[in-house]
């Protein structure tokens, strides 16, 4: 967006999904509705500073609808014109019909938009891009910067995603789990460029939670908050990665931890366990420990067992091996590694850690080096090389 005022931009972005939803409920196709709302946003950013409307959402709906009609009328393709003519010939409904006297956003339309943007026919990357665009209200340029690709590449990805779901209507009941997967992917992307994707994922999950009653949506939000709470402790002043065990726990954000645990406890009380709640429970047990020695590893292993029952993946087994190594000793952890594929991400890092705890320093150092060679990020690579150097210089685990 071109608005220099980030607050105004954030407010504007929150209106985007509701406005797209209203256009679609009037008969617009999703792709054109999204284009029209982008055009309306640009006009809003231009005219609002000098002439702010009283009802900003109503203004956006009116202008976006006009833009939609403009696009339909100027559309050269006859086929597309036919697709859209139905919508365009509908009389424009009274604005009050959908904005409501109380100004409450149309919750169902926005919820349907989340589901549509995470359509199972879309690749995960396309679902992420479309969600950030249509639900998050980000511009193509911002999304491209966040994922470090040229704007034209992201525009193409979005355009193809729109075509993929062109035939889908908003009011089809969709799969909530693909929405949660998409939001968690955004969260895991971290923050790069001028858009904080972690904050954006949390905002969108909060907004989803306000619209739908689901223990797993609660679980995902709790999981995000509990991980986000550790953000300031995860990197040193020089940008180096700091492992969970070595983090300064006074830097953890207690407010986020308390909120995450409250949300999680309420969700667990409903007895509808799912993978996000189980993962959040593990994060909560870490958050609860004042020192790393206080960590309740026995309970963490139990939660990994729950998670395995819900979702048996090699990654979950690998993480469980770490917890077993802490609760039952490194020998037990190493035994859990047997049968797992060495090509798993972080396999050698986990084995190195367990070997070091078992007193096999030489072997541990070699494995840290191998793990560094296979690291997926610079921060991880440097961290693992530092671990190898530390073990070789004969230093203990926590300096």
């Amino acid at each position, binding site marked *: 967006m071109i608005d220099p005022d980030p607050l105004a931009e954030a407010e504007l972005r929150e209106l985007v999904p509701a406005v797209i939803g209203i256009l679609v409920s009037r008969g617009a196709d999703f792709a054109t509705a999204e284009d029209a709302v982008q055009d309306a946003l640009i006009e809003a950013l231009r005219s609002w500073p000098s002439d702010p409307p009283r009802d900003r959402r109503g203004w956006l709906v009116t202008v976006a609808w006009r833009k939609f009609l403009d696009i339909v009328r100027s559309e050269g393709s006859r086929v597309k014109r036919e697709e859209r003519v139905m919508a365009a010939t509908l009389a424009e409904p009274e604005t009050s019909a959908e904005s409501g006297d109380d100004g409450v956003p149309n919750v169902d339309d926005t919820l349907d938009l989340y589901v549509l943007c995470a359509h199972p026919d879309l690749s995960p990357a396309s679902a992420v891009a479309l969600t950030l665009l249509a639900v998050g209200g980000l511009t193509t340029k911002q999304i491209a910067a966040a994922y470090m690709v*040229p704007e034209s590449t992201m525009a*193409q990805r*979005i355009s193809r995603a729109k075509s993929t779901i062109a035939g889908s209507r908003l009011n089809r009941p969709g799969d909530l789990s693909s929405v949660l997967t998409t939001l968690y992917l955004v*969260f895991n*992307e971290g923050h790069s460029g001028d858009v904080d994707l972690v904050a954006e994922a949390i905002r969108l999950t909060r907004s989803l939670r306000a619209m739908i009653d689901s223990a797993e949506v609660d679980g995902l939000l709790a999981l995000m908050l509990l991980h986000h709470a550790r953000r300031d402790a995860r990197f040193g002043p020089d940008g180096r990665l700091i492992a969970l065990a070595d983090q300064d726990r006074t830097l953890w954000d207690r407010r986020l931890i308390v909120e995450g645990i409250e949300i999680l406890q309420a969700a667990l009380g409903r007895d509808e366990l799912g993978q996000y709640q189980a993962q959040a429970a593990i994060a909560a047990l870490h958050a609860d420990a004042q020192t790393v020695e206080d960590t309740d590893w026995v309970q963490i292993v139990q939660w990994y067992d729950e998670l395995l029952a819900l979702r048996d993946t090699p990654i979950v087994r690998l993480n469980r091996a770490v917890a077993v190594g802490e609760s039952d000793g490194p020998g037990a952890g190493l035994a859990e590694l047997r049968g797992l594929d060495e090509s798993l991400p972080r396999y050698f890092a986990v084995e190195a850690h367990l070997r070091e705890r078992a007193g096999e320093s030489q072997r541990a150092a070699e494995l840290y080096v191998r793990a560094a060679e296979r690291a*997926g*990020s610079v921060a991880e*690579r440097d961290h693992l090389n530092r671990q190898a150097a530390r073990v070789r210089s004969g230093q203990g685990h926590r300096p």
Partner: protein
Amino acid sequence: MAKYLMLKHYRMSSDLMNYTPMDQWSPDEVDAHMAYMNAFADKLKDSGEFVDSQALSPEGTFVQSGGPGKPPVTDGPFPETKDLIAGWMVIDVENYDRALELAGELSAAPGKGGEPINEWLELRPFLDHAPSVDE
């Protein structure tokens, strides 16, 4: 998504390079080769997988610090470094298999007689930023 570098080499040791070098092709064959490369890049732009593509001059200089207060030392080209980087393409794709598929396709650019050169391309993953989860 994952970013990969597809590295194209000028000349590799002769046992790895089993096609006729470009300087022995006809101009039309060179044009056909370039057209294939451009069409490949355009296809990736259209599919939303293209990040960057650059070519490098074969002529380069080796540079080394000359020590405090002294100008840098230059040398080279070293005759023993036979392996030169000709250029690269950066792609952003869904997974490793897709990267392999694309590298295979790029490797099959036409050469002498319009036959695919099937050159060795080097495919290397980017080290991206650290994920937000640390357990």
